[in-house]
């Protein structure tokens, strides 16, 4: 007999969520912070159908919106969707209710990046952080230095060697070098100090 209604599956140890068991705090928070019209979603799945990468997502775009409505914060911040999203804006463009799906996923990505939850796509999460670090350093971003800095981050190089991505990357680098498409020396902006201030006050002043 299954008291837990799990249908005999072995993964039933995970605590089950019930709709509405968490109130609407998370919904109110995300709506307030993004200005997105999340309550208006009626699950027509047009966003998921328009999305070019929905096949690679564990939580599909329409589910993201639903999960916000019912307050499943941890599930959302630990999913791969927030990192896999390309911000191609297909979902936002085709939403009949003007929900702002892409902006919402972007916002969840921000929340995930600032939370203690381990990102599902470590390389992509590290890439964004490294990009901003490089931007702070020079004011502009040099592709060669960006990839170099990314490879020096903990765990990245090891992962690339294991998957063979490093070899491909070196081959690619050589191809670009032969075509004269690599700029080895970065350009430093004169106003790099001002840019640093902006990045440091990133959670800065909201009027």
């Amino acid at each position, binding site marked *: 007999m299954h008291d837990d209604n799990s249908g005999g599956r072995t993964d039933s140890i995970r605590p089950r969520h019930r709709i509405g068991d968490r109130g609407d705090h998370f919904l109110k928070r995300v709506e307030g912070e993004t200005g997105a019209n999340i309550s208006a979603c009626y699950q027509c799945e047009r966003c998921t159908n328009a999305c070019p990468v929905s096949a690679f997502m564990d939580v599909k775009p329409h589910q993201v919106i639903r999960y916000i409505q019912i307050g499943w914060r941890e599930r959302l911040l630990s999913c791969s969707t927030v990192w896999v999203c390309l911000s*191609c*804006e297909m979902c936002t463009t085709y939403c009949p209710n003007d929900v702002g799906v892409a902006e919402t996923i972007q916002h969840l990505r921000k929340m995930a990046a600032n939370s203690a939850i381990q990102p599902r796509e470590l390389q992509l999460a590290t890439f964004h952080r490294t990009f*901003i670090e490089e*931007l702070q350093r020079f004011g502009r971003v040099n592709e060669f230095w960006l990839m170099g800095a990314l490879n020096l981050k903990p765990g990245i190089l090891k992962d690339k060697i294991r998957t063979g991505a490093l070899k491909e990357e070196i081959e690619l680098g050589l191809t670009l070098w032969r075509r004269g498409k690599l*700029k080895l020396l970065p350009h430093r902006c004169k106003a790099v100090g001002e840019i640093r201030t902006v990045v440091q006050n990133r*959670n800065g002043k909201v009027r």
Partner: protein
Amino acid sequence: MRLAFYPGCSLEGMASDYAESIEAVFRRLQIDLVEIEDWSCCGATAAHSLSEAMAVALPARNIAAAEKLGLDIVVPCANCFNRMRFSQVMIEKGIYDVPWPVTGKIKIHDMTRLLAEDDMLEKIRARTVRPLSGLKLVSYYGCQMVRPPRITGYTDYENPQTLDRLAEAAGAEVLDWSYKTTCCGASIGIGRRDIQEALTRKLIVKARQAGAEAIVVSCPLCQSNLDLIQAKESGPATPIFYFTELLRLALNSGGRPQHWLRKHVADPLPLLREKGVIP
């Protein structure tokens, strides 16, 4: 005509060929491009992945610099254009305070739309000395230039026409296909090569199925994605042209094409020779 020019980081590196061809085409069309002094990065995807305040403030510095010059900005890179427009819209709404004064009195143009205006097209047609007749192309716009429409101002975001019109003005034959604005995968290849390859490969395959011999693009990242995926392919390549490269060919403005087209991975020279565009 004078315009402020914001090249963006890519045009210093991977898209240096784009930068060169822009310079040549605008010189030929007698439009002055004034590079924004000491411009800085727009923040790209990383900035709005981490903080919206930062995504608004970083492009604002460049917009403010152009406002000081009193010139409209023209942006060649699709993502830079999108980020700058986003910043301008958010500042207009008054949601964020930025350290640089932005009044919103200047316009931000993406380069394709600026050149696809009727008078510009006239100018291009009048100066075309080497029409690219017989070259069959499809145009590829990508995401950031057209979506979301409330930021980019495109009304025909499902079937944009600017690149089509420009390529036709250069004398090429532009074919219709359904993947004009389908995402190429952008920078996701850095962490997930599988997704990148799936998306980019599909575009190449669909373009070939539509009968295209080459693809014309305006976004540096789309160009490098579509170009580099062909590095390991054998057989005839599908060259990925920047639209300014086609214009430069047609207008015959400066340099030997054999020289400045060398930066492509999918070699365009055999195709152009076959069509008799270059000897």
